[in-house]
Each structure stands twice: as structure tokens, then as C-alpha cells.
């Protein structure tokens, strides 16, 4: 592996200097905390010192003429960070979920799958969460796919001002779920009678009284269906953009050939473009579904933690940080992870396989 070692004196001096500097910083910081303007920045300084130290190591590694070793050494900080913060923490969460930790002091007493068992067997709130997530997921995916595909086809008609329309349908993507939830909370205000407002007020003044709705305050399970509206508002543009990419990749020659054969525009979409869009639909479904399984901030801002609009993401948050039921919170987090992993892992594995073949 180490075919050659090329000693270059200036670099070696620099490397040793960096290593020593890093070590001195680390040793100093271990006994003297770094406090700037009342902020304890010791660990941040330790991290930077560690990186200085590592930079010295990297210079020495680069003297061994092996590019593979250098590549791995350069990737190592990222790999270690992800290994700890993603995989290590998942493992730690799994361990917490198998304990009975409740209260501020950690308690790792092993109770097996008890937390999971009680979530599924005697926790009415978790049952509501599953029902709400299912309702939201179905509505959200259907809404985004139908609206997204419709918009993509409309914008494929070479109309003037296409770019402006596209910009309008996509801009909600740049806004936070929190801001979206706050605005739509006002638009979908359920007040009636004298206090009628928001979209209901528009319906009333247009004489469309039958459309006046309690929105997300509708009795369950249908109230959850209305939370789909702001989510679709935010992400149908994204779905549209995915479909537009798919439609554009259908060659103009193919369309022209169909036209010569006497196909109508409708038939071209029905028999040529739509079948070719299946892979796009699959990607869109996977991305949208994984978002909806994780849905959290939108519902927080819209529902103000109302139990009828509860989802696992909110339950995990409140039970852990308001109720200090860490073991239960960890179990919910892991269940969320499993549901997302079932969806995403095959997609990632396939992505990796096709790349390796290339």
C-alpha cells in the first residue's frame, strides 16, 4: 500500500508544528476552560484544536504516496461525525427505548420491548397518531401527485408566461413549515357566525355557504385530512418540478413520430408520456411519503399541539421533553425511523447498485 514515502522537509516541519500546536491547545483546554463573553466555548475550541492536530496528521499521510489512504484520511472526519451522530445515536436511542427511563435521571434498567408493546396495546394516543399519519400520508401523496402532474402537463403546453406560473407554484417550498402553519391557521379559521373569517368569509361573501368548513377542527378522523391542504400547497410545486423534468426528458422525436402516426395530444400523454413517468412517480412517492411520516413542524404550528391532530413526531417531542418519559420517546423515535427506513433503504440500495454497474 505504501509504495513510496517521499520526505519533504518543509511540509514535515509544518506538520509537526500543527500537531504540537493542536496538542498544546487540547492539553491547555482540558485544564483551563475557554470562556468568551460569558459563553463556555471550550468544546468548540477543543474541536478546532483537534482539527488542527488532524491537519498535521494529514500532511504526513500525504507524504506516503498512496492516494487511497489520503482519500480515506480526508474523509475520516465526516465519516466519524456521521458514524457517531447518525448510527451511534440511533443505537443509543434503541438502548433507551429498551429501558424504563422516566424522569430526569437516566435509568437503563432493561425492560425488553415493553415500551413498544404498551404503545401498540394500551396507548390510545399512539393509536390516534397512527390513524392521523395514515390519513395525512394518503391525502398528502395523492394531492401532491395529482396537482403536481396536472400542473406539469399544463405548463408543458408552451404557454406564454410559463416561467412566472412555475415560479408561483414553487415559491411555497422556500417557506418554513412553521410560517406555513401560522398563515394557514388563519386562512382555515373555523370560527362561525359573527366571528367568521379567513377562507370561510370568502365562501360566505360568494354565497357558497355549503363550502364553509370547520377545517382541521372537524371532528376526527376527518379533521386531519384538512391539514393536508397547507402541506400540498407547499409541496405540489416540488412534485410538479419532478414531473416537468420527466416530461422534458421524453424526446421530441418520439412525440413527433406519434403525431405523424396520427396520435392526438391527449393520446400522446396517455400512451407515451404517462407510462414513461412511472419512475418519476416512484421517486416522488418515496420522497413525499418519507416527509409525511416525519411530519412535525407544520402540525405543531397549525394545531397548537391539539391532541386530535397529534402525530408521532409531536408525541415523541412532548412525552420526552414535557413528560420526561425518555424511554417512551425513544421508542416512538425508533418506530418512526423503522417506518422511514422500510421506504428509503431499498431506494438507496438500488441507487447504489445502479451506480456500481456504471
Amino acid at each position, binding site marked *: 500500500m505504501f509504495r513510496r514515502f517521499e520526505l519533504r522537509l518543509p511540509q514535515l516541519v509544518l506538520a509537526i508544528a500543527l500537531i504540537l500546536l493542536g496538542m498544546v491547545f487540547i492539553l491547555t483546554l482540558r485544564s483551563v476552560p475557554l470562556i468568551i463573553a460569558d459563553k463556555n466555548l471550550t468544546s468548540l475550541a477543543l474541536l478546532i484544536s483537534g482539527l488542527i492536530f488532524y491537519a498535521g496528521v494529514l500532511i504526513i499521510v500525504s507524504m506516503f504516496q498512496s492516494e487511497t489512504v489520503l482519500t480515506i484520511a480526508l474523509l475520516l472526519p465526516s465519516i466519524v461525525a456521521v458514524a457517531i451522530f447518525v448510527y451511534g445515536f440511533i443505537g443509543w436511542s434503541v438502548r433507551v427505548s429498551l429501558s424504563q427511563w422516566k424522569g430526569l435521571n437516566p435509568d437503563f434498567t432493561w425492560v425488553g420491548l415493553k415500551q413498544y408493546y404498551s404503545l401498540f396495546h394500551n396507548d390510545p394516543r399512539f393509536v390516534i397518531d397512527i390513524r392521523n399519519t395514515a390519513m395525512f400520508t394518503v391525502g398528502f401523496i395523492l394531492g401532491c401527485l395529482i396537482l403536481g402532474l396536472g400542473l406539469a402537463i399544463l405548463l408543458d403546453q408552451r404557454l406564454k408566461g410559463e416561467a412566472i406560473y412555475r415560479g408561483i407554484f414553487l415559491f411555497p417550498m*422556500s417557506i418554513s413549515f412553521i410560517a406555513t402553519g401560522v398563515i394557514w391557521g388563519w386562512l382555515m379559521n373555523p370560527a362561525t357566525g359573527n366571528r367568521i373569517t379567513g377562507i370561510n368569509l370568502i365562501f360566505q361573501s360568494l354565497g357558497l355557504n355549503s363550502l364553509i368548513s370547520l377545517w382541521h377542527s372537524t371532528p376526527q378522523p376527518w379533521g386531519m385530512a384538512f391539514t393536508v391542504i397547507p402541506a400540498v400547497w407547499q409541496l405540489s410545486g416540488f412534485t410538479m418540478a419532478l414531473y416537468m423534468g420527466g416530461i422534458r426528458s421524453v424526446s421530441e422525436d418520439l412525440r413527433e413520430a406519434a403525431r405523424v402516426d396520427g396520435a392526438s395530444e391527449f393520446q400522446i400523454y396517455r400512451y407515451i408520456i404517462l407510462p414513461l413517468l412511472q419512475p418519476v412517480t416512484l421517486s416522488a412517492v418515496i420522497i413525499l411519503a418519507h416527509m409525511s411520516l416525519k411530519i412535525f413542524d407544520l402540525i405543531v404550528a397549525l394545531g397548537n399541539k391539539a391532541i386530535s391532530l397529534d402525530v408521532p413526531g409531536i408525541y415523541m417531542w412532548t412525552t420526552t421533553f414535557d413528560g420526561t418519559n425518555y424511554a417512551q420517546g425513544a421508542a416512538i423515535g425508533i418506530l418512526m425511523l423503522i417506518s422511514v427506513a422500510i421506504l428509503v433503504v431499498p431506494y438507496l440500495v438500488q441507487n447504489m447498485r445502479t451506480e456500481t454497474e456504471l
Partner: protein
Amino acid sequence: MTRRILLHILFYILLTALAIVFLLPVYLMLLTGFKSISQVDLKTMWSMPNNGLHIENFIAGYKQLAPNINNSLMMVIPEAILSALLGSLNGYLLSKWKFRGSNLIFTLILFGMFIPYQSILIPLVKFMQTIRLYGDIPGLVLVHIIYGIPITTLIFRNYYAGIGTEMLEAGRIDGASLMGLYRYIMFPLSAPSFAVVIIWQFTQAWNEFLFAVVLTNQSHWPVTVALNNLAGSQLVQWNVLMAATLLAALPTLLVYVFLGRYFLRGLMAGALKG
């Protein structure tokens, strides 16, 4: 031909109707924001300002959120820049210096982008408390950089994969090292990708809520947490809230309006290769 014209008119009507619905929330925020305080009434939510344009609501909203907007800026700027530098290095190495297992490592990194953060939240909070980076902005910056590694690496890797190896080979013949090739060939070509990644990370971190709410204390709340709190409190009038919401959304909206091209590319990268 007349059929085609009629069809086009129908398309325009459809698109315009949908565009109006899409713009409704922004219209409401602007409308309410510019009304005088005396004119704010739920019954007249949709009527135009009748005694000139006022900006009191925006001033009041800004007063509510100013410290938090500042917190968000302090977090987002270093986060976006450092994320992009790290992602660029990773992307270069994983696209141009493949080794046995490098695709597997990349896939394992990529998985980190999809996980629900609730599944790592308890260890994360405990860890940040242990290393004393809990409660303040630097800790939040670190967390956003680390959980940003997957998407930034992905965007740069795809970008670099599209750059031919001819230039790198020529550079190698001239004796450039692995880092020399990055420094003198790849990095200067990366400006578009840096724009995409910096804008993406800026938008993500600005809009993020979960890490912000569990990792910072009240004096360091970013704008999303403060806005959610404002919306939940009974003390703030809704007209001020509308103005505040617009202010909180404004930075990312402006980025979208002026740099939408780059924002879109980041968005599409999140869909892997489709």
C-alpha cells in the same frame, strides 16, 4: 385551430385560478401587514387598506422578532459556508477518488439525510449537554453542519461526477497531487455548486424547527421557534402576527425570488437521481 385556441384559453384560466390560490396566503400577509391598526378586524380580513398604507404592524412584528432574526443569521451564515466547504471536499473525494467500499460509505452517509431526527434526539440533547454546547447558537451550527453532510456531499458529488476526468489527468501528468488537483482544478470550477449548496443549507437551517426548539434556550431561539411561540400566545394581535410571519419568511423568499435557479437545483438534488 379554434379548438386549440379555446383549449389554450381554458389552460390559462385553470393556471391563473390555481396561481391565485397559491398566492392567497402571501396576499393576506401583505394586506394585513399594511393596514392601520384601527382597520384590523377579522370581519374585514380581505378588504383593502382604506386609509393609506401603514407599516406599524411590520414595525411591531420586527420588534417582536428582531433578536431571533439576529440569532438565525448568526447561525445560518457560518453553517452554510462551512457545510459547503466540507461537502465540496467529500464530494470531490467520493466522485473522483473511488476506492473499494466508497460507494457503500457514500450510501451509508446518504441515509443520514432521510432519518427522522426524533430517532436521534435524546442522545443528541444529552451529548450536547455533556460537551456544553447545549442552549446556544454554536452548538446548533455544529449540529446543522453534521446533519447537513449527506445532502451537501450528494450535491457536490453529483456535480463533480459530471466534470470529465480529462482535466484531472492532464493535471496529474503535470505532477499535481490529490489536493493540488482539488485546489487548482476542481475548486475553481465549483462556483455554481457552492451557490446551490450555500443557498440550500441557508434555507434549510433558517426554516428548521426541531433542532432549534430542543437545542436552544429562550434567549437564543432562532426565528422559527420564536414565531411559533408568538402564534401560540394570546397577547399578540393577529395583524402583528401576520406581519411577523412575513418578516420571518422574507429572507428565504428573497433568496428564492433572486436566486431561484440555484434553489431549484438543490431541491432536485434532494430527489437523488429520480
